[in-house]
């Protein structure tokens, strides 16, 4: 079908690539794909992702049945893919809310086109991230012991453990993100309620819209709440990933015990999160014909952020190496040498290429404007960031203080399963999302379109 707003190039406005975008057009452009009959592309996507979902469920089942020995972990490298996945997914999860709230606080007009699905991405990513620590433990049935609850053992969690901090960080963050996402969704749900033709749709959207009427008072309260939550969201996100960083930094292992970890984990999270947002933006833009709403300028600015982040990452890596050398500890230095030359050296070089070298291409406007190039870079960054996380674990654990028990990790089929299958689950959830709620915030876009004078 041809888009409601046909993209006009060169774009007459900065953030809307269409001659004009009246409220009704804007609304149709975003809301109607949800009501439109399901397209073939969507079905194919679902059929592709569904097997992965089943694979993931099956893998978890087998894991619970056999025990975590099915992974490539060993007496020395006791952590592996599950933890890396956790850090990677929570990283992606951090980006959505972080981006959305930071842009909101900084009054970035273009925020409207991406915040909705960026926040959705957060929800799904954090949910998947939350699974990882649970399946990672040896006795998952007792994972709930991390929570303080009245029990006949009269026991409590051990609050000094970074894992307990994680527990609270994930829970708080997930619930926070759900509320943050939902609150800004209410007006759009009302729109859906009022546009849908089916009774079921009216009841469902109606129920979740809570009877929103768009009254001036509603808007006033909503804006107050939203901006305040954003103000809380930024420190929350930073703290969440800082705590993830503390999982390592609060230890005394060479290569982990580094004060730079928390900030550098936050940047890393934003980095791969933004990369993921761009990938999803490309998909949605293409899949829902939103070329007019997600414009080249959007990708332009996001690429710049990526570029900045990649430089910060490079700086962080360099700092690590420098501190190891400067600190003069034999073990620290030896870990760094191992990174560059040891068992996992090829992966390490690959990570440097993906996270630091390749993104430098974004210095060139041509690259920033070439969507395929952008896509490739973003995929590379996500791979690079996963490598970074797994290597933080492997390098230190494989090469710590006790040379007598240095061992390396050997990938098993099940490691691959837990690495790949969740991606399918993520895609699946996202596909459901775009079919159920407007993927872009309609009221924000209406506002924007009026500001831009396109309405």
């Amino acid at each position, binding site marked *: 079908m041809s888009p409601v707003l046909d993209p006009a190039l060169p774009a007459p406005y900065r953030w809307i690539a269409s001659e004009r975008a*009246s*409220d*009704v057009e804007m*609304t149709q452009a975003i809301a109607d794909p949800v009501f439109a009959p399901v397209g073939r592309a969507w079905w194919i996507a679902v059929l592709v992702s569904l097997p992965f979902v089943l694979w993931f469920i099956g893998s978890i089942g087998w894991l619970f049945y056999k025990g975590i020995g099915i992974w490539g972990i060993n007496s020395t490298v006791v952590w592996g893919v599950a933890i890396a996945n956790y850090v990677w997914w929570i990283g992606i999860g951090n980006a959505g809310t972080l981006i959305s709230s930071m842009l909101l606080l900084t009054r970035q007009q273009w925020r409207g086109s991406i915040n909705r699905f960026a926040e959705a991405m957060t929800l799904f990513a954090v949910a998947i991230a939350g699974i990882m620590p649970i399946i990672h433990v040896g006795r998952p049935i007792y994972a709930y012991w991390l929570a*303080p609850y009245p029990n006949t053992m*009269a*026991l*409590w*969690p*051990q*609050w*000094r453990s970074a894992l*307990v*901090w994680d527990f*609270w*960080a994930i829970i*708080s*963050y997930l*619930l*926070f993100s759900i*509320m*943050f996402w939902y*609150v800004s969704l209410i*007006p759009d749900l*009302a*729109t859906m*309620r*009022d*546009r849908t033709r089916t009774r079921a749709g009216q009841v469902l959207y*109606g*129920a979740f819209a*809570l*009877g*929103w*009427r*768009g*009254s*001036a*008072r*509603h*808007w*006033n*309260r*909503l*804006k*107050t*709440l939203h901006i*305040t*939550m954003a103000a*809380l969201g930024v420190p*929350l996100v930073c*703290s*969440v990933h800082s*705590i993830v960083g503390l999982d390592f930094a609060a230890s005394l292992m060479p290569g982990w015990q580094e004060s730079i970890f928390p900030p550098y984990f936050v940047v890393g999270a934003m980095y791969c999160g933004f990369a993921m947002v761009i990938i999803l933006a490309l998909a949605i833009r293409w899949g829902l014909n939103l070329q007019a709403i997600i414009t080249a300028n959007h990708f332009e600015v996001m690429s710049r952020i990526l570029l900045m982040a990649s430089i910060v990452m490079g700086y962080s890596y360099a700092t690590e190496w420098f501190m190891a050398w400067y600190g003069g500890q034999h073990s620290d230095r030896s870990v760094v040498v191992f990174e560059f030359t040891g068992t996992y050296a090829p992966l390490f070089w690959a990570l440097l290429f993906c996270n630091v070298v390749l993104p430098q291409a974004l210095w060139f406007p041509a690259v920033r404007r070439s969507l395929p190039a952008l896509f490739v870079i973003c995929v590379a960054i996500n791979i690079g960031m996963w490598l970074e996380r797994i290597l933080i674990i492997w390098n230190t654990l494989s090469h710590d203080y006790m040379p007598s028990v240095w061992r390396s990790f050997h990938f098993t089929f099940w490691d691959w399963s837990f690495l790949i299958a969740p991606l399918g689950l993520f895609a699946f959830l996202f596909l459901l999302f775009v079919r159920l709620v407007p993927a872009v915030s309609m*009221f*924000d876009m*209406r*506002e924007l379109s*009026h500001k831009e004078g396109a*309405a």
Partner: protein
Amino acid sequence: MTGTLIAEFQNPDMLCAALRQVKEGGHHALDAFTPYPIEGLDAELDIPPSRIRYAMLAGGLIVAAFAFALQWYSAAIDYPVNSGGRPLNSWQVFLLVPFEVGVFAAALCGVIAFLRSCGLPRLHHPLFEIPGFERATQDHFFLLVAAKQTGGAIRDLRDVLEAAGAAVVTELRQP
């Protein structure tokens, strides 16, 4: 008895113009219903500033304090164990959880306060019966006004609104 009218406009500027005239005419502008927030409208309608933030602050602080107290009580009083030679009340590290939980609690209180201050959930509302009101969430702009306490005020008000370019003006009958 006073009459309340609701007028439907094509675009926000008309609505704002109408609102101004209504107030000049001494009528009461009760509320406006728009598909997106319109700058300054709440000022025109002199909606009191929201107190949501106080609720959030209070909720956040209380829960954070509770979280810290729980840690302190469980680790130092109820079942003290020596964990790696750390002090029983390692308050420095006990600050992390309260922060996380506090932020979450603040947000939660915010949402609750928001719902209360907007009177939501309100799935059933008389306004939904107004024909065409469903466009208030899409592309049309509604103004809810009450006539002043003098005879014939209703007609006068209706004129004002239509003059201001209202497409439809409906009178709400009081329940």
